[in-house]
C-alpha cells in the first residue's frame, strides 16, 4: 500500500490539486444531501405534540385534519397556519425550496431576482435557482460518473481484447469500431429522443453505446505495447493463464492512462449532458439540470442570476475536474520522480 501513499502525497503537494479536489469533493458531498439542505418540506416538525419527519415519510393532508388524500403542502396557507399555532413548531432546511417547488405567494413576477426568499432568485417558472443548481449539479455529476464507469468497463474490455490477442480479433474489431464510430451520434440522439420518452437511463444507454471507443483505443495501444514487454513474456513462460496475465501484468501497467483519462471523461460527460439539455434533447423537462438553466438564461437574457450562477457552477466543476486530472497524471508519471 506504500506506493499508493507516495502518489497521494505527491498529488497533495501541488496546492492547485489539493484545493480543486477539496472544492469539488466538498460540493459533491453536500449535493448528495440535497434533500436535507434544500427542500420545501420541514426536516422535522411537531404538530399537536406529535413528531413528524416529512423528508423521510409522506404524510397526506388528512394527517393534519385536512380534506385531501394528497401529500401535504407545507408551504400552503393551511399548513403554515397550523405550524404557527401555539406549541407547534417545524425546522425547515437551510434553503426552504425543492427543485420543483413553486412559491405561489410571491408578489414579484418570474424570473425573480435574488431576494431573502430565494437566495439566487427564481427561474421563469418561479422555481428556486439555488435548489435547481444543487440538484442539477448532483444529477450531472452522478450521470457523468455512471457514464464514465460504463464507458471504462466496455472500453477496457474491448481494448484489452484487441490489444492482447491482436491479429485477426484486433483487425475485425477495429473495423467494427471504425464503422460504429462513424455513425452520426447527435442525429441518433435526436431521433431516439423523439421515438422514446426521454429519461436519464435512456440517455446513459445511448451515450454509452458510443462513449467507450475513445478509451478502448487507448487501452488497445497500451496492451499492444504491453503484450510484448519482457515481463509479460516471462509471465507466459511461468505458465500463467491469459486472464491472469491481462489482469495482473498488463492492466496495472496500462491503468495510468485510464486513470489519467478519468477526470477528463467525467468533465466531458457533464458537458455532453449540459449541451443536450441546453438543446432540449436531454433529460425530461421537470428534472433539474444545468443545461436547462442555461437555456433559460439565454431566453431571459436580463435575468443575470440565471446565467451567471449556472455558468459559475459549470465552469467551477469542469475546471476543478481538469485540475484534478492534471494532478493525477503528474503524480502517476514515474518520469517526474
Amino acid at each position: 500500500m506504500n506506493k499508493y501513499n507516495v502518489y497521494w502525497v505527491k498529488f497533495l503537494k501541488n496546492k492547485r490539486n489539493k484545493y480543486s479536489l477539496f472544492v469539488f469533493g466538498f460540493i459533491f458531498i453536500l449535493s448528495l444531501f440535497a434533500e436535507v439542505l434544500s427542500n420545501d418540506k420541514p426536516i422535522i416538525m411537531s404538530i399537536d405534540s406529535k413528531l413528524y419527519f416529512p423528508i423521510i415519510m409522506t404524510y397526506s393532508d388528512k394527517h393534519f385534519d385536512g380534506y385531501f388524500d394528497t401529500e401535504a403542502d407545507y408551504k400552503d396557507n393551511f399548513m403554515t397556519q397550523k405550524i404557527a399555532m401555539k406549541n407547534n413548531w417545524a425546522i425547515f432546511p437551510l434553503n426552504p425550496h425543492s427543485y420543483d417547488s413553486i412559491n405561489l405567494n410571491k408578489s414579484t413576477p418570474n424570473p425573480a431576482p435574488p431576494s431573502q426568499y430565494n437566495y439566487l432568485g427564481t427561474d421563469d417558472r418561479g422555481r428556486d435557482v439555488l435548489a435547481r443548481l444543487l440538484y442539477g449539479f448532483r444529477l450531472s455529476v452522478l450521470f457523468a460518473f455512471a457514464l464514465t464507469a460504463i464507458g471504462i468497463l466496455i472500453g477496457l474490455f474491448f481494448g484489452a481484447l484487441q490489444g492482447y490477442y491482436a491479429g485477426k480479433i484486433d483487425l475485425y474489431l477495429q473495423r467494427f469500431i471504425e464503422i460504429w464510430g462513424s455513425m452520426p451520434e447527435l442525429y441518433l440522439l435526436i431521433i431516439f429522443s423523439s421515438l422514446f420518452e426521454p429519461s436519464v437511463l435512456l440517455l446513459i444507454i445511448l451515450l454509452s453505446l458510443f462513449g467507450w471507443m475513445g478509451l478502448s483505443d487507448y487501452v488497445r495501444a497500451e496492451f499492444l505495447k504491453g503484450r510484448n514487454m519482457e515481463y509479460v513474456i516471462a509471465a507466459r513462460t511461468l505458465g500463467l493463464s491469459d486472464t491472469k496475465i491481462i489482469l495482473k501484468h498488463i492492466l496495472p501497467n496500462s491503468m495510468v492512462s485510464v486513470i489519467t483519462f478519468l477526470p477528463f471523461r467525467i468533465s466531458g460527460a457533464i458537458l455532453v449532458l449540459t449541451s443536450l439539455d441546453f438543446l432540449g434533447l436531454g433529460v425530461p423537462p421537470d428534472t433539474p439540470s444545468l443545461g436547462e438553466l442555461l437555456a433559460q438564461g439565454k431566453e431571459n437574457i436580463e435575468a443575470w442570476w440565471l446565467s451567471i450562477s449556472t455558468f459559475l457552477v459549470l465552469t467551477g466543476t469542469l475546471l476543478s475536474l481538469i485540475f484534478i486530472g492534471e494532478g493525477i497524471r503528474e503524480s502517476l508519471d514515474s518520469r517526474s520522480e
Partner: protein
Amino acid sequence: MKILEIKNLSLKSKKSNALLLNNISLTLNKGETLGIVGESGSGKTLTGLSVTGLLDSSIFEVISGEVIYSKQNLLACPEEYLRSIRTKKISMVFQEPMLSLNPVQTIKKQLDEVIKLHVTKIKKDINSLSKEIIIKTGLEDVDKTLLSYPHMLSGGQRQRVMIAIALVCKPDILIADEPTTALDVTLQLQILDLLNNFKIENSMSMILVSHDLDLIKNYSDHIIILNNGVIVEDGLTRNVFEKPKHEYTKKLILSKPDKIITKNSGDKKILETKNLSCRFPLNNPFFTKNKKYFTALSNVNIHVNIGETVGIVGESGSGKTTLAMAIMQLLNYDGNIIFDNKDLSMLSNKDIRKYRNNFQIVFQDPFSSLSPRLNILEILSEGLVAFNKDIKYNELFDICTSLLSEVGLSNDMLLRYPHQFSGGQRQRIAIARALSMKPKLIIFDEPTSALDVIVQKNILELIVSLQEKYSLSYCFISHDLKVIKSISHRIYVIKDSEIVETNSTENILNYPTSDYTKNLIKSSFLS
C-alpha cells in the same frame, strides 16, 4: 603539440546537486587518439559534450575549469563562436546513428547543409565534395546513397554517413562517443579502421569514448579511466594495460570474463530441435493469395545435453531471439522440438502451459523484464502460485527467501519494487524467478549485454555456480563471442537464420571453418 586541454573541469547537476565531473584534466595532442573508458554513469559522455559546449545549461552547471582550444576557453565563448567551430574544427560522432540523422531528409541534403555552412557555397564544389567524402567512408554506390533517406540504409551505412558528415570539413578534433556500440561486432572493426585511417591521413586528433576496453586498447595512444566522474588513472595505453596502478583499473581489466565452464556435462540430450523453421508474414494486402514471408529460422538443428551450456552466437537479426522464443513455445514454428523425450510441437496450448515449469528464460533487459507494479515477492511467487494454487503464504515466503539467497541477494529485499534495484540486482531477480520453477533448461537471451563489465562478470559466475549446484542445462544466446566463449561447452554460430557452424568452444575458436566465424573472431579481438 597540444591541441586541446581540459583543466580542472568540475560539473554538477542542477537538479540533484550531485557532482558529475570532479576535477577532470586532460590534454590531447595533435594526431593522437585519446581513449576515455568508464562504466555507464561515469561521466565519459559528459566530458565529450563539454568540449563542444553542447551541455544543456538548464540541467548542468559548470562549477570550475577551462576547456582550452586554440588559446581560447571554450566554456567562456559565446554561442556563435562555438557554432562556427562545431563540425568545422571539433566534430562529433554519436552512438545511435538512427537518432542522429533526420529521417525526412535525404543524405545528400543533410551532408550539403554542413558543407554549405562551413566550407563552400558553390554548387559544383558541394557536389564533388559530398561525393568524395562518401567514397572515402567506404559506401558503395555513391549516387544511390546520397539520394536515399536514412531508413533505407542499414545501421552500419548510417554510421558511415554520420562519419562522413562529421569529417567533411576535415576537423582538427573528432569526438567519437561509443561510435560502434550500436553496431554488430563485424562492423565495429570496419568503422574504427575507417576513423583511424582518416585520422592518419589528415593528422586529426581523436577522443574515443567507450566502455569497451579491447576497442580502446587497440585504437588509442593515451587512455583515461573514469569512475564516478573522477579520473582514476591516465597514461599511455600500453602502460596502463600492462601495469595498472589503481584498484579500479585492475578490476576493470580483470573483469574480462574468464573461462568459467563447469566440468562434467552428460551425453543425454535434454533438448533437440529437428528442422526448426519459423517465418513471419510480411505486410501483405488483406486479400492476396500468395503471401510473402520473412524467414526468421530455416532448418535449425541444435541439441543441448544435460548439464551442458550451449552458446548461440550471431548478429542482430540473425534469428537468435526467434530461436529462443520458439524453444520457449511462444511463437508458431514448423519442425519438431523434443524436450526430455517429449515432442512439444505435438502438445496443445493447455498441455504446454502445464509443462512450462521445465524450461525458463532470462532476458536481456533487466529493466523491462520485471513488472514495475509488483514487488519482488509477488514476482517470484507468481509461477509457484500458477502451478500450485493451494500453496500457503508462509511457504511462499520461505521459498522466495531461499531463492533470493540463492542468487546472492538478502531477504529484506522481498517487499521492494523493481525500480529500487540496480541493473545487476534486477538480473539476479530475473534469474531467481526462472529458478523458482525448478527448470531443467534455462535459456539466457543476452543476459549480460545491458550490464557494465564488472557486473557482467559477477552474473556469469552466478550462472555457472547455479549450473554446478543443480546440474542445469543452459542455452546461452549472445552477440558477444567473448562472453559465449567464457561460459559455453559448445557453440553454434547463427547467421541469416541458419546455423553456419557448430563445434566445441576450443575447436571453433582455434579452427573456425566458415569465413563468417573467422571474421567474428577477429572482430571480437580474440585472435
